Every structure is written in C-alpha cells, then in structure tokens.
C-alpha cells in the first residue's frame, strides 16, 4: 500500500527558482529530513567503525598518536594464547547461551500462550529481567554466587547435597556456568515475548482442524507452530546471537574476565587491552576480529528476512 505514490502537489513547481525546488522537490526534501539522523550515524557510527579498523593497523596508545604497523597487531594476537582463549570463550558462551535461550524462550512462549488466570500479569512479570539494567541484575547475581554467603550454597548445604560452599565465581568451570546462566536469565524474556507475539498470529482454527484429524500435541507443534514461526525465530535469534556475542556488561560486572581469564570474552579483553592497559591499537584489533562473526550473523538475518517475505507472499514492502 505504501507503493502508491503520493501525487506531487504542484507539478508546475519544477520550473520555479532553485529555492522553491529545494523546498518542494521530493529528493531534496528527503535529503533535508534525513540530515539529523545521518549526521549522527555518520559521525558517531560509520566514521568510528572505519577508524577502528584503521587503529587496528597502528600502534596507537592512549596519549600517543600511532604509526602504521601493518598487520603487526594481528600477528601478535595470532600467537597470544589469551586471545584464543577469549575467542573460544566467546564462541562457547554464545553457542550455549543462545541455544538454551531459544529452547527455554520458545517453551515459555508456548506456556504463556495457553489460557489461564492472571495471564496478563504473568506476561508482564516475565519481562521484568529484560527491563532492569543488565549491570544491576548482574550485581544481584554476583551476590547470589558469592563464594561465602551464596544463598544457593546455603540451600544445597541445608538440603544435604553438598558439604562445603561452591566457589561459584572462583572456579573456572563454575564461573563459566554462572555467567552463561545469568545471560540466559536475562535473554529468555526477550525471546519468549517476541515469540509469543508470533504465536498469537497463528489461527487457533489450524490447531482445531489438526486435532480433529488426530494430530498429537507434538505434531501440532512440529507441523503448524514451528513452520509458521520460523521467520520470526530467524530474526529473534540473529539479534540474540549478535548481542550475546558482543556482550560486555554482564561479564564485567560479575567476573571482569576472571578467574584466570576463563570468562574473558573478546569484548572484555579488548576493553582491558585498550582502555586499562592503554594499547588502543591492539584492543582495536581484537574488536575488529569480531566483525567477520557479526557479518555472518547479519547474513543469517538477511536470509531469514527474505524467506519471511517469500512465505507471506509479499514482493516488495
């Protein structure tokens, strides 16, 4: 419907002075309307993006202009075991957290889609972890996972399951589990509520028809819900993967990359190298190394969107 052009108000204007043209010509008007948004995006997004890649080829430090050193930063990183550990951590973190977020989120969306009392209130409550600033809830997790006064250790001890406190954030495996858990905790509401919105577009009559034909609940899900949800799943999961991959604040508030770098993600490592140690060039190289992964995620999103249009029978909107 947006394809129908709005007729030009006064076609004879095109012969008028340059000033009137600037005021009425559609392309010029469009340009003026775009100026504020484009100014922000060019000066503070596109330019820094390019600058970041340039910095990664220099030996810039804080307070000193850098010189071009070609790929020295990357060669240095290639031999840096901590960098590779952070890549491994990031992939592990992204993969496990996204998969579980998707599974639990979809399950929660299906549960919330049922008829039940206090539905509206439940749905509103589920979204709260997404509203509260990540750092602040990460602090709550930090306290919950405290090595001495953790409420989880206390409960398990009183249930007789363990003898001594678990050193949640001091042990490498436990620390990874804890930050992944916190990430899932924060991400599930987003996945669940967006998938729920998708679920509500599926007509109940489809399920009724299928049930009459003898379909089981699993078949209902597999052959009706899932195919109709794929497009929205593709988009939601792209965002989820993207933001998990580049996560910074949760880790920084809970572990700062420790213990022994076991929870360092690429983002936290680049912060540590660039801002704390002052090696801007090296930090920029680490964050530039994230770009290929992000491009992969964007491609997935792109094809997800394409497929969605095809499914809905739209050509161009």
């Amino acid at each position, binding site marked *: 419907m947006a394809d129908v052009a709005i007729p030009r*108000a006064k076609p004879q204007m095109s012969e008028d002075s340059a000033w009137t043209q600037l005021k009425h010509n559609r392309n010029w008007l469009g340009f003026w309307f775009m100026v504020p948004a484009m100014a922000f995006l060019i000066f503070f997004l596109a330019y820094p993006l390019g600058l970041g890649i340039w910095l990664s080829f220099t030996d810039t430090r804080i307070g000193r202009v850098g010189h071009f050193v070609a790929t020295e930063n990357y060669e240095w990183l290639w031999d840096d075991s901590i960098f590779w550990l952070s890549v491994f951590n990031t992939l592990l973190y992204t993969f496990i957290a996204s998969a579980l977020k998707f599974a639990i989120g979809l399950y929660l969306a299906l549960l919330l889609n049922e008829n039940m009392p206090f539905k509206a209130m439940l749905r509103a409550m589920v979204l709260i972890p997404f509203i509260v600033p990540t750092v602040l809830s990460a602090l709550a997790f930090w306290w919950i996972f405290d090595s001495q006064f953790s409420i989880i250790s206390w409960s398990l001890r009183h249930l007789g399951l363990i003898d001594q406190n678990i050193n949640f954030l001091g042990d490498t495996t436990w620390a990874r589990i804890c930050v992944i858990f916190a990430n899932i905790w924060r991400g599930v509401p987003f996945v669940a509520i967006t998938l729920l919105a998708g679920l509500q577009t599926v007509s109940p009559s489809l399920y009724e028809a299928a049930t009459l034909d003898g379909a089981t609940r699993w078949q209902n899900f597999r052959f009706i819900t899932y195919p109709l949800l794929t497009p929205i799943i593709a988009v939601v999961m792209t965002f989820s993967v993207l933001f998990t991959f580049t996560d910074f604040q949760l880790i920084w508030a809970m572990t700062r990359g420790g213990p022994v770098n076991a929870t360092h993600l690429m*983002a936290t490592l680049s912060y540590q190298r660039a801002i704390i140690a002052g090696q801007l060039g090296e930090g920029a190289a680490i964050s530039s190394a994230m770009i290929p992964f992000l491009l992969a995620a964007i491609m997935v999103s792109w094809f997800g969107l394409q497929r969605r249009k095809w499914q809905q029978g739209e050509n161009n909107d």
Partner: protein
Amino acid sequence: MTDLPTRSVDLKAVLSGSSPTVAKDDHSEGMSYLQSVPRRMVTLYLPLAIIVIVLLFPFYWMALTSVKPDEQLLDLDRYNPFWTWNPTFKHFHKLLFESYYPYWLWNTMYVAVCATVLSIIASVLAAYAIVRLRYKGANLVGGLIFLAYLVPPSILFIPLATVVFQYGLFDSPLALILTYPTILIPFSTWLLMGYFKTIPFELEECALIDGASRWQILVKIVLPLAIPGLISAFIFCFTLCWNEFIYALTFLQSTSNKTVPVAIVNEFVDGDIYRWGSLMAGALAGSLPLVILYAFFVEHYVSAMTGAVKE
C-alpha cells in the same frame, strides 16, 4: 504455505491476555477443555511457576538484601536467610546521604532524556522521509539504517573514545548524549517506519490538496496519529540509555559525572565486607524508575520490542 491464515500481530492482545478475536468469537476457551485439570497442573502451571520464580528471584534477593541489617546479611546460620523481621533503611540512607548516588541518578536521567529526545526527533524525520517522501534511494537508506542497528557498541567504543577525546568531550555528559543516538536512531527509525506505514496516505493527500506543506503534514497529521508509536519508541530508547554501560564506562572518569550502572560497579566495590547491603540498595534504586515506567506502559514496551523485530 502461503495461504495459511495468519493474522497480523495484535500487540495489545499479547499482554492484555485476551486472546485475539478468533478464539473469543464463539465464547469458547479454545481447546483447553481437552485437558484435565491435573494434567494442566503438571504440563502448564508447574513449569511456568518454576520459570517465573527463577526469573524473579534475583529481584526478591536484591530487595531483601537491601533492607536486611548487616549482622543478618552475613550470619546465615542464626537467622533464616530468606526473610527478615527487622528491616532497616540504613543502606538506603547511606546511599542517599553519604554518597554521590543522587548525582548519579540525576546524570543517568539527564543523559537518557536528552539522548532519547534527540534520537526521536532525528528518527521521526528520517522515518517519515523514508516511508512517505520516498526520495530516490530511500529503500537503500532504510537498509543501511537497519545494518547500523546491527553494529554493536562493543566494537565501537575504542575508536569512539579517541573521537570523543579529539572533540574535547571526554568526561562530559555531552559525550554520552551524542553517542547514545547511534544505538537509538536505527531502532526507533525502524519502529516509527512501521507506524507511519499504517497511517492512511489519503489523509496526507487531502492535506496536500488543501495546500499544506510537508512539514505541516508531519506535525499536524502524522505525528498525532503516531503517538502510540512515539511513546513506545520513547520509553524503549529511555530504557536502552539507562541500561547502556560500555560507553559510560569508557567516556566518563570523575566520580560525580558517572551514570548509575557504572558508578555502582566502580565506586561501591571496595574491600568492605558489609558492602552488600548498600550495593543491593543501589541496584534496586537504580532499577526502580525503569520498573515503574514499565508498569505504566507495559504494552508499549512489548510493541516496541516486537515492532522492531517484525519490520
């Protein structure tokens, strides 16, 4: 697959709980009568209860810790850790009168409001131009803005730090006010594009025929009709600003200039073993404004969240 009946997402229904029209037309309860009550207990209420409890427990814990007296915080054996009978507001008192907390709250609010207003203005203009002026290349620009949405702050903060330093904005709230829109504009432009598309263009045609300029059309016709979208974009952007961490951590240095998330992480984490009370009080006080805002605008939040994904 294409002719399966799908309905457009009814956002109000997502949260209001009234399931969409079809189910209600015949006053039935869908197919839930096929399940017995005990079965529903196990397959629906039990897992739901577990998930909701896990999702909300950290907030309960945060609130409880912030009102517990110090001795009860660390002595888990003599007192039941899950409840307290003598709540104290000592931690909040310390927060409000013995720290910079009020400044931090004010900074966060100030930065969030300014950045949000700037981004909404820029996004309204951009979205209107892309959807309705449809100048040459509008679709391409729309796609580029969507790509900008996918550029995360954690790969931009290093070069942005040098840019901020060059412009002399380091350690000033202005640094955040100018950089946050890069996160907000792509999101709110896409959200508003969706809203503008739903406004009938016949209204604009009428106005054009009556001699209105584009600017008048935008201000007098399109914006009043897009108010729900504007509210959604506004509160969602506000939440994103409040939540933002890495830019605030990198660009601000002096204690009194910090925003709440950064300040709590950096200023309250000292060696004091009794810090937990005030730390949790700070986290709670920093979350409450957003939760209250959320309580009033639940459905706008959801439409913002799903809207941006939907487009």
